[in-house]
């Protein structure tokens, strides 16, 4: 498959030295000058790795965040710091947006308060549903921008997002996915949902039944990248059938040292701190940076759109 060839050639990833234990840094560090941080990031004391190109689509990714505790607030604080420079205008959520009770106070404490600075700036949050979420309330909770739907799609620039409900992948939803992907003309097709199709985490493991239904659709219609959570770690998984996979499930919860080591699935695994991701799509290039709750860059890099020789 030619896609794999391009991946091998063009993957530009760097991981910082001295990162806390638990990271499985197996990415190539060759050609690590994937992105040049703008001057403003240095002024803010940030180690920004995104290029911030004109007209690019920029967003943040969180998952398994809705605890309302100090760890979630720490990640939200880092998001706010980076927002000052990156100005991402939306956040995608991999599910488990609100753990435990779902009273109005819970929504305040587990979502509205931690992300208040971002919400006040007009940053939109696009949620998917996890197994700890209340599907009826959350799909209708306006700040989650689900429009009353368990699954939905939205487009930002060159990127179309397909937000799925992996808790209940019924025939109607699979048919919807098939139809929406088939008719998508977007340059980048990105899917996200809660349950992992591939993971080296030990607690749950992958959902092979879900995988057997979704992967044929993703490969048939050229999905470029997939995000999910459920496992409380971070993983960048080796491309599967040419598709990029990320697991971001530690933006509030964390399961220390839960990744199998060694494993042949991860390019990077991180299970010793909470984290979130920044993503920037510019033309045929997707830049990403994973940042821990303490502000360290776990990994960053650039991935070319499949089938291109983007540089």
């Amino acid at each position: 498959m030619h896609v794999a060839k391009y991946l091998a050639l063009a993957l530009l990833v760097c991981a910082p030295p001295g990162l806390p234990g638990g990271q499985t840094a197996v990415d190539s560090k060759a050609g690590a000058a994937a992105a040049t941080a703008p001057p403003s990031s240095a002024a803010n004391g940030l180690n920004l790795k995104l290029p911030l190109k004109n007209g690019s689509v920029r967003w943040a990714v969180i998952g398994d965040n809705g605890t309302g505790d100090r760890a979630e607030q720490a990640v939200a604080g880092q998001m706010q710091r980076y927002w000052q420079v990156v100005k991402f205008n939306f956040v995608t959520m991999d599910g488990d947006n609100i753990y435990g009770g779902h009273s109005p106070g819970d929504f305040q404490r587990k979502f509205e308060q931690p992300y208040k600075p971002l919400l006040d700036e007009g940053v939109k949050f696009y949620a998917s549903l996890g197994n700890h979420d209340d599907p009826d309330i959350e799909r209708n909770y306006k700040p989650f921008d689900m429009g009353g739907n368990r699954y939905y799609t939205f487009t930002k620039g060159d990127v179309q997002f397909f937000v799925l409900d992996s808790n209940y992948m019924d025939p109607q939803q699979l048919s919807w996915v098939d139809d929406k992907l088939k008719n998508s003309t977007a340059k980048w097709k990105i899917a996200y949902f809660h349950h992992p199709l591939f993971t080296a985490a030990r607690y749950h493991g992958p959902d092979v039944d879900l995988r057997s239904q979704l992967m044929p659709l993703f490969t048939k219609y050229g999905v470029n990248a997939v995000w999910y959570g459920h496992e409380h770690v971070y993983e960048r998984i080796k491309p599967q059938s040419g598709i990029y996979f990320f697991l971001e499930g530690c933006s509030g919860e964390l399961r220390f040292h839960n990744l199998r080591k060694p494993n042949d699935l991860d390019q990077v695994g991180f299970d010793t701190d909470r984290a979130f991701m920044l993503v920037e799509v510019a033309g045929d290039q997707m830049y990403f940076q994973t940042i821990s709750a303490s502000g360290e860059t776990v990994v960053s890099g650039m991935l070319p759109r499949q089938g291109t020789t983007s540089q």
Partner: protein
Amino acid sequence: MNTLKAIGTFGLGLMLAALPSSAVTLQTPEQDEAAAKASIAALSDAERAQLKAFSDRVKAYVKMQRQLPADKLSPTKDVTKLDQQRKALRDALQRARPNAKQGEIFAPEVAPVFRKLLHATMAGPEGPKIRASLNHAEPIGPRDLTVNGAYPNTQGQPMQSVPPTLLLNLPVLPKGVEYRITGHTLSLRDADANMVVDFLPDALP
């Protein structure tokens, strides 16, 4: 027979991805669909008629629910309002079917058909991956379910995800009603009112 036609109709033409090694042997979606059809096809005419009658009862329930003079949930930031609307819809449903009992929709005639379908599915070639999926998703143990009562997730308990291949082997439900699994019990949940419509004990092996 709309229900039976609907089962598995979406999967045609799907392709099997190159999957890494796994603890279970995976089937292609075509094989899953074929297995689902075979499960249904293995039923007698009388059993298929019972499934059709089940689907008609579910449709009648949904039609009744939609005619109730209760606000349906719509997007708002007001969580209190959403809670109240959901409770009001559940109250209206309880008033509309005050004598509803377990087995009214999963009627005694169709109960053995569901058990047969589910047992055959779990014992079939797709059984291992369905089991793996169930075990993967924070299995929910037995719960006390009450027809017309709130589904037992109101204290923040996680909800068990339902494996897609299992859903492929069951009659398709209209929008607003879902199959849910707690332990060995299969239930019907009203997804607007978060209410147990009916349930079938010992449905899963």
